[in-house]
């Protein structure tokens, strides 16, 4: 069984069909890219999987379990991590508080969270991740004082904090400088080797071709192609979708 599977997922905004009858599978240990022109329904797909809003139709399975309609936070606590296309941080909190917030609900019970301090392992891990992302010197800064690139890295770091089994990344390298982009890709590969599964929405084709073993192409909310990078590169429908069909 795949780690994540959607069956006939559909999302309508009023009369606009953003995602249409999408069947999608991710196996354990894969790195999958979701690509497609702007407005092709990639982010909407993520949002339906994590129930940011309900899908109009279709079902979502995670670890063989039907998670359709579960609240977002519950899905996240089952071991799904995600970033948003627009960075979502707690801007008026420090970098370090942001990191700890991203993991606190994964431990203990609601009541225990009133009485226990932060897990020392989590604190250590937060330091390590910030160190790796070259932003550990900013740990006591408010997140709002970070540059766009630094915020992007913090966002990425927060998702990794609870070691999610499935990581959904929405454009992880956009707005991140070259060198850091390479580092992020290496890190994703490293974590992938340790058993984490990644689904990545990405516009940068270098990243997609280098990082991913399998690519899914969306256009107008429909899956128009699926396959290995070299197959996708030569697929006529994909080329048409990206460059427009010449009459």
């Amino acid at each position, binding site marked *: 069984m795949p780690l994540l599977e959607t069956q006939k997922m559909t999302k309508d905004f009023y009369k606009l069909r953003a995602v249409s009858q999408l069947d999608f599978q991710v196996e354990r240990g894969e790195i999958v890219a979701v690509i497609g022109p702007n407005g092709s329904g990639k982010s909407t797909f993520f949002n339906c999987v*994590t129930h*940011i809003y309900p899908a109009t139709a279709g079902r979502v399975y995670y670890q063989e379990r039907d998670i359709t309609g579960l*609240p*977002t*936070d*519950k899905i*996240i*606590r089952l071991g799904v991590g*995600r*970033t*948003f296309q627009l960075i*979502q*941080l*707690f*801007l*008026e*909190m420090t970098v370090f*508080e942001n990191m*700890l*917030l*991203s*993991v*606190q*609900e*994964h431990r203990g019970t*609601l009541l225990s*969270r*009133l*009485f*226990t301090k*932060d897990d020392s392992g989590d604190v250590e891990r937060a330091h390590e991740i910030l160190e790796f992302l070259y932003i550990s010197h900013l740990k006591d800064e408010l997140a709002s004082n970070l540059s766009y690139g630094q915020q992007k890295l913090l966002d990425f770091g*927060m998702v990794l904090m*609870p070691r999610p089994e499935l990581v959904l990344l929405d454009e992880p390298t956009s707005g991140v400088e070259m060198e850091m982009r390479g580092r992020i890709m290496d890190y994703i590969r490293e974590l992938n080797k340790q058993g984490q599964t990644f689904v990545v929405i990405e516009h940068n084709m270098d990243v997609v071709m280098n990082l991913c073993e399998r690519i899914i192409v969306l256009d107008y909310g429909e899956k128009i192609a699926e396959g290995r990078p070299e197959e996708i590169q030569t697929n006529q429908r994909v080329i048409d979708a990206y460059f427009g069909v010449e009459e």
Partner: protein
Amino acid sequence: MIRWLFWGIIVAILCVLPRFLGDYTLYVVSLTYVYVTVAIGLNLTLGYANQVSLCHASFFGIGAYTMGLLLAQGWSFWLILPLSGIFAGLFGAVIGFPALKWKDHYLALITIAINIITFFVMMQESWLTGGPTGVSGITRPSIGSLSFTSDINYYYLLLVLFILAILASIWIVNSKWGRAFRAIGLNELAARGHGISSFNYKLLAFAVGAFFAGVGGGLFAPLLRYISPDAFTFFISLEFLIMIVIGGMGRIEGPIIGAIIVVMGPEVLRMAEAAYLIVYSLILILVMLFMRGGLVIVLDRLREAIPARIGSRR
């Protein structure tokens, strides 16, 4: 170290204060302790979790009526006091449900509606609440031979509970709950995206905020020895709002500063009720226009300025 010394001195001053106060002033200071407790609750709900509550007077009232009515049934004060908080807290959790769906102005109106409805229930259901005349003859507690009946002894009881309430709020704010409250208040989408349940924490923010208000109510009833619906109208909710806005929302010191100003201000300035309401309404506007952080910002600046001065003298 200096901080502890500072707080020690403050507590010491509050301990010897009654010697220097007349009956009425003692009552006003006692009342301030009660109101601070309620305002701390509102600060948790609104200041930290950003959930608008304009019905904290209802929670306050539920606590007060719980105390007044159960005391009349012969229950012990020490048992009823936590019950006042728990009843108000449960009611708060129920009021939290609209907050799952509504924000800001909608929530403001819904909670105003709740306050108006509870006020009507207090007025109309006389079989339970005594109607417009309320509940009178409320007694003050004692432990063994130590009686809190006199104003001065009750003052000390309130002082102890006031300090406990502040410590409890500091504990909550610094706990993972407090962090989750702020997270929900700042960015609900991000919070959900990191596994923080808005369902749990919104209801909790209302429940905890209402708990403090309920305990405040439980202390209020024996202080006055008499309660009536007038003390729990929407305008009282508005006064709680004014307290935390003037003091500083989302700051521990906020409700303390705010309650001191709102409760003691009129007494010090000897103003008529309408006059101080004008002044406070005006301050509310001015704070929103020019100092959204509240008066606690002034304290912050002082705190920064004083060490700088000492440094420059060297």
